[in-house]
């Protein structure tokens, strides 16, 4: 089970039009990238976190989702602390500040994107991409990929449990071997699943395209204006400070 996906479907913002959520989140992402990290990134991080809580997440859940990317950002940012010269390795003069700025910018950007994914189911995102010009064939491949991910994940976790029950996880070598066997068993399963789905869809009149009806959403211009105004305010505020 993928947590961001589950949260998106349970979100209080689930029924808000994609345009509103996308404007807010991608707007925040652009602000995080464009504004000076102090105070811009901090503002973005705060607004995104507030948005997450308002949309129905608890603060611990939100922090738990932020933690893994935060860890990766930290390991990357740590390199800015040191500098390499002909004399060897030393602490960079303003390394701490540089790393801190980088950390806050990246964290704000991650938070902005995460806010989008915990409030918007993947189907709507791909529908949005479609409207932006993603070819219909690729949109269909993307959505079917999404559907297959969950089927294969269940299969993979059952396979994993079965291997562990037969002591396939004991030691480094065995784990590599088990992982390899799992992958090798999963690939034909995936292709077989595709073949059987094709058969199942043929019975439903599959003629090459995977058209479906999407729930209609009405965008309210005034709300878009409010969001845009808020973003502009944040930009002005952080540039002014």
């Amino acid at each position, binding site marked *: 089970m993928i947590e961001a996906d589950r949260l998106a479907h349970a979100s209080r913002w689930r029924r808000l039009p994609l345009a509103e959520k996308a404007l807010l989140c991608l707007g925040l992402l652009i602000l995080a990238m464009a504004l000076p990290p102090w105070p811009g990134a901090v503002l973005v991080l705060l607004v995104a976190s507030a948005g997450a809580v308002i949309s129905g997440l608890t603060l611990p859940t939100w922090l738990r989702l932020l933690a893994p990317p935060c860890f990766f950002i930290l390991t990357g940012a740590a390199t800015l602390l040191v500098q390499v010269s002909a004399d060897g390795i030393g602490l960079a003069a303003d390394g701490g500040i540089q790393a801190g700025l980088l950390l806050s910018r990246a964290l704000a950007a991650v938070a902005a994107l995460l806010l989008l994914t915990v409030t918007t189911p993947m189907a709507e995102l791909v529908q949005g991409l479609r409207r932006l010009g993603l070819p219909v064939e690729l949109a269909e491949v993307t*959505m079917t990929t999404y559907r297959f991910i969950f089927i294969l994940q269940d299969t993979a976790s059952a396979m994993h449990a079965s291997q562990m029950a037969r002591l396939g996880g004991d030691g480094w070598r065995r784990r590599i071997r088990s992982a390899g066997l799992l992958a090798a068993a999963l690939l034909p399963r995936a292709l077989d699943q595709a073949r059987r789905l094709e058969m199942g869809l043929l019975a*439903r009149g599959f003629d090459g395209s995977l058209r479906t009806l999407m729930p209609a959403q009405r965008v309210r211009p005034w709300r878009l204006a409010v969001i845009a105004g808020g973003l502009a305010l944040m930009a002005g505020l952080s540039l002014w400070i």
Partner: protein
Amino acid sequence: MILEARRLGHCYVGGVEALRDLDLAVPRGQRLAILGPNGAGKTTLLLHLNGTLRPKSGQVLLDGRAVGYDRASLNSWRRRVGLVLQEPDDQLFAATVFEDVSFGPLNLGLSEAEARLRVEEALEALRITALAERPTHMLSFGQKKRVAIAGAVAMRPEVLLLDEPSAGLDSMGTAHLLAALDQLRQAGTTLVFTTHDVDLAWSWADQVALFHQGGVACQGSAESLLSDRAALAAAHLKMPMALALGLKARQLGLLAADQSLPRGRSESLALLDRLTPPGQ
């Protein structure tokens, strides 16, 4: 007969013979059970009955006329004969229930408004209107099964083919599913289903076809066929418990010849309660 198969033959790529000279007749408006062991080719038969597979020999008839395999014929065939596979994940591809069920109606070339109506109607018929916005991958197995059926029902088929509809469902799940299917039948849909479970065939079918070694060994009313010990034994099947009990109750005079035999577990248990110790 709304749908017929005549001398159908089919070999799989490996040369394994799945169907051999198979004859089957589907009477309009009835529930027909195709009863046989696993791996005998029941699924292959269903895939032939809506044109997904093409027979090596023999033919399929709709309303007494042989159907072709060109695009237009297949299209109108599949409008009239819907198919629901055993594994719902083999038929569901879209992200949400509503989207998925709309796939069939849109393939029929309906307008969006009409398709929307069909979807709502099908969800209603399967009693899953509340699930419309739910993501497909978060449904339980039983719910997925109903969505798969709704996907076929939304195309308003005259005949609905169901492969092992109760497989993987517990008794309550099966009961709910059969109740929903009963409603479809009352609305006039002909239902054909495969099963390896004699009790299910007895509890729910009007007609039964015994599938044995790639062909239909015999076909008849559920009562006449499932009480025929010789025919059952030839297909390595045993009599349904409820039917055996009902026949015994008739013999004991507990059930008049014009009273209906018990079909399900509840009726059987109730009938069993009516057996009295000698001398009472």
